[in-house]
């Protein structure tokens, strides 16, 4: 209704209006513009068309337009030969107009070539202008060229600091919400009606602001000179904004134009504000630009940040600003604070900013597009167009009927059923230490223990090692750290064990969820994705892997769908860098657990780098470089030993299943399955292969299906070949190792993933056929295919739930004697020697506070560092020595306890019983425990209660006192009292330890005593602080990895919603 203009009275108001149309290469719009002029209910008396060096047919159109000549008696064309800014062009137009007798009743109406005034626009403007003598400038409501229901501008809104506010926002629906506006600081020159006397009074446009900011400056100066500037909602001008939209040939890019506009607004503000405020304003502009630029950078809006930063360039031309201020001094009549109400109030500006942020970060609703279209619907809606049936369902109902949610729920139920025995035994309880068995070793540590095992230069179980540790420890440490935030977990004996148990438990659920999300790259059908996700989540390969404690397989199962989808997105034209960085991060995590997949991802990224067009190469580079760089120096060891690239923690197997049944199980995606359940995989294999025959909707999709097929074949080949590549040997029991090779399940996962691509792609024609039954046979085939897909998957999930996870994983294996744990993790830091005798060999574990290997891996040749330990143990378990042993060798190694997994009447137990310095503490089902006597104290020394990791000795090596440790591998931070004579600190660590440790006394670095059997450092007799720091190995690498990780996470996290990112 606001748009419907009041009928024109037809009576000519008291005043003459001359019109100026500024034309510059506006052939596309000029004819309509002139049509609009001609159709004015109140046509101007004269028209001056200022042609600013148009090189197109604009000039011809202007000359040939007869309509306007019919309506306006005097039409004159002024041709400017060079490019002139808008201000100059208007000045030239005004100059071409004769000066009337009374300039106060003479008006000039300025139009751009890409504007079309509504028929009553001029009448409305003039009417408003004539209403008060004080009105100097009147501007129309500028609306969109294509859709007049959308607003473009209604007066220039600016804050006191010169920030232009898009109010209304460009494209905002016009519902009359701004029609109350009257007085504004300035209006756009597009459709501006200016009183000739006012124009002459302020001297037209200031030479400093003739292009950008010209309208703002003109209005501001008019206001300062006492001429009101108003906006007239009844006067409507359609504006193509050809300059801003970049449609006009030969003008700068829209972003550049916007930047210049912002800068000009700041400059105008600096020129027209109070001279006292100007310096402060300048500082404020610089600061706010900097702050908002940084903020936007953090929010990953680099372009907006750059735009904000360019505001600072407004300060770079102080002389132009000062000149404009000097020139404007004459016409200034009002005090500046009289204009206060014309600026946007700070509160409003702040609210607008907050609205912007909120708009950018609130999650997008899936119907956003339709809702946006509805906003311009102002009239009443027909009842039948929005019947209640079409209303969106309530949120709970939508969730309950969501196929993805149902799939996840079904898998959760099946998982819980499968884990029933383990849960009953307390597998997931924080009071226990998680599960162990199969590939998973018992673990009792926390996030910090895992972190030290990853980061410290000297780390690992037993005497430790200086070799590079696997980055999977860092991942598990991070997961454990997160889990420790959950109340109760941090107090657990083994928060790491509990976390791993939960990870294994939740793997099917998480994998289902990830497969559902990732399936979107193939099909948008929720039902198909849910089915595919269900098949993936309950796949036999995952169930087998989990039952065998293969943590790496679990992680791969969860992340592989994301990684594959991420690679697919990176190869697509509409892929984003955010997704690529997220994919790179996921690939790194997958690679940390499964190096073979890292190798595969490198090959895939290389292919994309070579074959991909345009930006895809950049994304491929991200996928190529980031995972490798994130894994850092660990990757370098693959160069030395390529076997490691084909194995991984918990990824090897010593079981040979190369027989026909094994091959069949691999092909059907159920490695290790022996029962009839293996055949449940068959329909999926058939459907997956058939699905690859689906016609791709585009060439890219056909390529995608081909890649899916290749991936499947690669996986199958890997699964079938892995058993034939002997990587070495792996431990199979106490004292035994067997030929080890890569577990076929890793290949089966890829095979299955490739087949699921086929299943998802093939779901499209099937679902179409089901939705629109056409040919009878086609419908029947679709029903059969759907049944063939759904029934075995559900049966497989149910069968898994019923059968359970087997008995390989069990609860409570990580039970070291409480007294040993207490002393081991305390300041004594001593160790427990666990002996597992067998007929052929005695295995021993040196258990300390440092966690051991979490997962079975290939056997490595023993470190030379361990020679003293191995000798001591060999001596202990038998061989050359007599029956009566001496335990001082153990005490020197910081061994506080010896536990033997044998019966009391075994020879070894008797041997230990009769050993000097060992006293039996008791017997449990886990074995017999002995306590090792500490080394005897020197004269005047403080006797120890138990052997310790670090000790202070005199020149003869006799114990003076125990040095308390503060962390793994004899990290020390303690005050040592003064001593009398020469003294040494001896660490129960191997000699190589001293190459990595930094030992300082009162800040001075100590050097190890050469030739000592154990790391020994001479400590001055004065009191002082002894510090032993196991500095990070390759600190620069670690720092780089950390920074890169931070950057990748920053890049991978989407900030704000997709809509807001698109807008920038």
């Amino acid at each position, binding site marked *: 209704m606001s748009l419907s203009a009041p009928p024109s009275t037809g009576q000519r108001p008291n005043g003459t209006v001359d019109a100026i149309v500024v034309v510059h290469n506006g052939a596309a719009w000029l004819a309509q513009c002139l049509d609009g002029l001609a159709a004015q209910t109140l046509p101007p008396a004269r028209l001056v068309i200022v042609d600013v060096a148009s090189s197109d047919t604009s000039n011809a159109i202007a000359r040939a337009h007869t309509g306007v000549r019919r309506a306006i008696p005097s039409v004159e064309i002024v041709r400017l030969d060079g490019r002139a800014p808008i201000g100059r062009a208007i000045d030239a137009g005004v100059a071409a107009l004769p000066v009337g007798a009374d300039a106060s009743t003479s008006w000039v109406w300025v139009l751009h070539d890409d504007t079309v005034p509504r028929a009553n626009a001029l009448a409305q403007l003039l009417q408003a202008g004539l209403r008060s003598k004080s009105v100097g400038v009147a501007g129309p409501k500028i609306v969109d060229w294509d859709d007049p229901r959308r607003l473009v501008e209604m007066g220039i809104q600016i804050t006191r600091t010169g920030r232009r506010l898009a109010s209304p926002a460009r494209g905002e629906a016009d519902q009359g919400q701004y029609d109350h506006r009257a007085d504004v600081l300035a209006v756009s020159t597009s459709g501006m009606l200016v009183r000739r006397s006012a124009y002459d009074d302020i001297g037209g446009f200031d030479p400093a602001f003739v292009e950008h900011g010209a309208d703002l400056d003109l209005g501001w100066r008019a206001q300062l000179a006492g001429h009101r500037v108003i906006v007239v909602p009844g006067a409507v001008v359609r504006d193509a904004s050809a300059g801003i939209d970049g449609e006009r040939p030969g003008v700068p890019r829209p972003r550049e134009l916007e930047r210049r506009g912002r800068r000009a607004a700041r400059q105008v503000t600096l020129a027209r504000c109070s001279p006292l405020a100007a310096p402060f304003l300048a500082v404020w502009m610089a600061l706010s630009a900097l702050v908002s630029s940084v903020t936007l950078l953090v929010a990953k809006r680099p372009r907006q940040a750059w735009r904000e930063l360019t505001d600072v360039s407004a300060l770079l031309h102080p002389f132009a600003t000062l000149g404009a201020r000097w020139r404007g001094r004459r016409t200034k009549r009002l005090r500046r604070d009289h204009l206060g109400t014309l600026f946007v109030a700070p509160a409003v500006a702040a609210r607008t900013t907050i609205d912007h942020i909120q708009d950018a970060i609130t999650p997008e609703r899936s119907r956003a597009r339709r809702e946006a279209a509805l906003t311009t619907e102002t009239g009443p809606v027909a009842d039948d167009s929005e019947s209640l049936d079409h209303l969106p369902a309530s949120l709970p109902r939508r969730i309950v009927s969501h196929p993805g949610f149902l799939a996840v729920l079904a898998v959760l139920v099946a998982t819980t059923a499968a884990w029933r025995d383990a849960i009953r035994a307390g597998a997931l309880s924080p009071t226990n230490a998680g599960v162990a068995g199969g590939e998973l070793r018992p673990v009792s540590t926390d996030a910090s223990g895992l972190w030290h095992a990853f980061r410290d230069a000297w780390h690992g179980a037993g005497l430790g090692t200086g070799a590079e540790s696997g980055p999977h420890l860092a991942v598990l440490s991070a997961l454990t750290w997160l889990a420790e935030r959950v109340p109760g977990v941090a107090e657990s004996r083994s928060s790491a064990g509990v976390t791993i148990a939960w990870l294994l438990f939740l793997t099917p659920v998480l994998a289902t969820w990830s497969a559902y999300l990732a399936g979107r790259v193939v099909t948008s059908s929720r039902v198909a994705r849910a089915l595919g996700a269900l098949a993936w989540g309950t796949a036999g390969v995952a169930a087998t892997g989990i039952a065998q404690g293969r943590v790496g397989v679990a992680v791969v199962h969860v992340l592989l769908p994301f990684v594959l989808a991420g690679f697919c997105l990176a190869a697509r034209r509409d892929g984003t860098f955010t997704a690529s960085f997220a994919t790179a991060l996921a690939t790194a995590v997958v690679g940390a657990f499964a190096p073979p997949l890292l190798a595969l991802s490198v090959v895939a990224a290389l292919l994309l780098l070579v074959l991909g067009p345009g930006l895809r190469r950049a994304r491929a580079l991200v996928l190529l470089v980031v995972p490798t760089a994130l894994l850092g120096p660990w990757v370098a060891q693959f160069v030395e030993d390529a076997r490691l690239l084909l194995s991984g923690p918990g990824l090897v197997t010593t079981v040979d299943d190369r*027989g026909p049944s094994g091959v069949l199980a691999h092909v059907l995606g159920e490695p290790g399955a022996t029962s009839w359940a293996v055949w449940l995989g068959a329909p999926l294999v058939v459907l997956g292969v058939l699905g*690859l*025959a689906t016609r791709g909707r585009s060439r890219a999709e056909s390529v995608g299906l081909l890649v899916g097929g290749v991936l499947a074949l690669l996986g199958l080949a890997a699964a079938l070949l892995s058993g034939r590549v*002997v990587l*070495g040997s792996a431990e199979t029991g106490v004292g035994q190792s067997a030929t080890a090779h890569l577990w076929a399940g890793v290949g089966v996962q890829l095979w299955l993933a490739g087949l699921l691509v086929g299943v998802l792609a093939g779901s499209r024609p099937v679902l179409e056929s089901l939705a629109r039954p056409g040919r009878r046979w086609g419908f029947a085939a679709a029903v059969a295919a759907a049944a063939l897909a759904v029934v075995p998957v559900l049966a497989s999930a149910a069968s898994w739930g019923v059968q359970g996870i087997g008995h390989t994983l069990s609860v409570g294996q990580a039970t070291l004697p409480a007294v040993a744990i207490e002393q081991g993790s305390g300041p004594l830091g001593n160790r427990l020697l666990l002996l597992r005798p067998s007929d052929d060999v005695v*295995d021993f574990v040196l258990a300390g506070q440092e966690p051991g290997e979490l997962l079975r891996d290939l056997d490595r040749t023993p470190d030379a560092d361990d020679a003293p330990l*191995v000798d001591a143990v060999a001596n202990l378990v038998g061989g050359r020595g*007599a029956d009566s042993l001496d335990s001082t060798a153990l005490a020197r190694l910081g061994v506080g306890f010896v536990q033997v997994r044998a019966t009391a009447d075994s020879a070894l137990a008797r041997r230990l019983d009769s050993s000097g310095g060992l006293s039996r503490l008791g017997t449990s089902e886990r074995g017999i425990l002995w306590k090792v006597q500490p080394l005897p104290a020197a004269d005047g020394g403080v006797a120890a209660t138990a052997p310790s990791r670090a000790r202070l000795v005199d020149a003869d090596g006799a114990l003076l006192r125990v040095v308390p440790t503060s962390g793994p591998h004899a990290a020390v931070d303690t005050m040592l009292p003064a001593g009398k004579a020469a003294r040494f600190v001896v660490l129960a660590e191997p000699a190589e330890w001293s190459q990595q440790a930094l030992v300082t006394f009162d800040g001075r670095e100590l050097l190890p005593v050469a030739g000592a059997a154990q790391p020994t450092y001479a400590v001055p007799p004065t009191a002082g602080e002894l510090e032993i720091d196991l500095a990070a190995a390759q600190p620069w690498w670690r720092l780089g990895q950390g920074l890169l990780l931070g950057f990748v996470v920053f890049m991978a996290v989407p900030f704000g919603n997709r809509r807001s990112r698109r807008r920038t």
Partner: protein
Amino acid sequence: MTTNVPGMVRAGAVALVAAGLAVGATRVSGSVQLATPGGQAGLPESSTVLLDESSLVCPGQQRLGATGLRDVEGTVTVAAATPDQGVVAGAPAGGSGTVALLGGSSSTGLAQSSDRGAEVSAGTAAPDVVIARARGAFAPGLVATQVWRHGGDDDRGLTVTPCQLPSSDVWLVGGGGGPSRTERVIVSNPGANAVSVSLEVLGRGGPVDAAGARSISIPPLSREVVSLDALAPDEAGPVVHVTATGGVVSAVLDEQWILGATGRGIDDATRAASPSTDLVVPGVETGGGISLRLANPGSTEALAQVRLLTDKGAVQPEDLRAVRVPAGSTLDVAIPSNPAALGVGVRSDQPLVAAAWTERRATTGDQMGDFAWTPATPALRGVAGVLLPGLDGTTKRLLLTAGSAPATAQVRLGSGDSAQVSTVDVPAASTVAVDAKDAKGVWVVPTKGTLRGAVSVAGIDGGVPFFSVASLSDAPVRALSVPVRQVRN
């Protein structure tokens, strides 16, 4: 609808290649080895290695320190030696070492030597355990023997007691009923920690109840002497089973028999072979009464066949063809006298423990005499020996008994330059006696077949015989070296 040829080609190719891979995997064998798998991750196999430290436990002065029994003062002579160079197979030539005798809980050094072949000997009159210890190159083949020789009336007799390797489980066969027949069980703990020892006694009528719960704790490097009469009063045929928990012990049963006013003798019963269905008691000296004591520790009656392994082969006395030993009981069977040295072979359907008792008595006066217990022993494998300190003027015989196959042994009489080395062939199921003349030590190295042996020492003192038999058991030479392997968790 047009046919989707590319799609069908795609799916067909995938199906074909997959089928090809699967079929190929079942048809083609062979594998690629990127590394050599090791059964034990590069560790050596278990192997036997020469010891570099060995020790034997001698009971010390047997006749002191028993609660409720009369102490008999006296000195025992303990001797220890390591064999000559070359006796221990595989031992490197040369090398230094020490042999020492250590007494009591403070391990007081009684004697020590660093000369190979030198016999280290010392007398001890204290109620302490004596440990013979050899280190270095002297450790393999260490032999120690303890000799008690006492003249006079009641307490007279000769006991030659081989010092033993400690173990957790010792069967002692000896003792008998009657007043003034006293038995002391001397249990020694050579370890550094206290050991708990329980004693079970089997008797003619089955296990002796009162002894069932008998358990004693022995402090480190100490010995305890228990009177068997307190455990099993009036038991005519006791067999003692000593089991140790928390360590290993050595045990002997010291027996003295005075029948009325007649001193019948004194001897130490040493460790008998563990219960077995095939036992051999080697070197039973004849010349007096012989009996064989069998014990059946099981819960089923045993049917045993006892044969004599004489110098002319096996002899089967008719009434020993089937001997029934009740479950949990002991049985003494008389062995018919035989002019030659012999061994006794026992085969049974249930595991048994056995030892032979032989006696020498004066033919005049009240027929005082001496006796000896010879236990069934395991076959010799390495080096065995007995030292004979202070036994000049006695008759010493080495008695070797072969198993079911002929056996050969290298016998060394004496040591050093004066050693007499000979090779002795023992026919199957026979016993051969070798005169040891005046050798200070006897060493036997079996080279073929299963061989068991004993050394008998006999003499006359004032017209009354004294007599003892020391059975041969393996000297500590090698130990099974079990490789140790570090695992990370």
